[in-house]
């Protein structure tokens, strides 16, 4: 089963609309990361959340981690065509000893229509 569930899988919005992408795990998330990927390119780091209840913002993007540290949301306000791409949540999953592996959800494909 997927360790990190992301929803929705894809999203089409009109420019100027707000939207939310969710990322959920059945396990405690030790570090939660949001990345953006444009077609044919690498991943760009957006934000990192560590503490329960933490919230961070960058320009029009806000990310939150719930108090239980099992769910995160990414909210975009007044979306623009430049926000289009694939959004991926990643988390440090314990993998034994003192090691963690950075595991990703399946991504959300965001299309913003002008």
């Amino acid at each position, binding site marked *: 089963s997927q360790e990190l569930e992301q929803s929705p899988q894809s999203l089409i919005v009109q420019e100027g609309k707000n939207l939310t992408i969710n990322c959920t795990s059945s396990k405690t998330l030790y*570090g939660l990361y949001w990345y953006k990927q444009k077609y044919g390119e690498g991943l760009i780091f957006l934000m990192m959340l560590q503490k329960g209840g933490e919230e961070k913002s960058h320009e029009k993007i806000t990310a939150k981690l719930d108090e239980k540290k099992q769910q995160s949301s990414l909210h975009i306000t007044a979306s623009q065509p430049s926000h289009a791409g694939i959004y*991926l949540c990643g988390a440090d999953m*314990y993998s034994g000893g003192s090691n963690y592996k*950075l595991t990703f959800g399946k991504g959300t494909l965001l299309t913003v229509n002008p």
Partner: protein
Amino acid sequence: DTAVSQTPKYLVTQMGNDKSIKCEQNLGHDTMYWYKQDSKKFLKIMFSYNNKELIINETVPNRFSPKSPDKAHLNLHINSLELGDSAVYFCASSLRTGGAGTEAFFGQGTRLTVV
């Protein structure tokens, strides 16, 4: 200066061939990774190295062999390439192995096409 660079960017090869992808990071990070992104854009971890030591090896066929000559480099060699190996392979690095607060930086990816 590119932080994580991988070469080549595109690789087209025939089934049965052996190929290598190189990765270098100039961030001074201890940990490096290889990920495979399939046609549905799912990013799956393959290997992780910390200070040249293999620490994570997901269920990857042993045709795939990573090599880390020093902590700034992690190369991926693939033997006897199969059609199903076609994907985009990403190299990444992070300051340490994780456990909260160690974001990873990604290379631009290598698009491997096996024909």
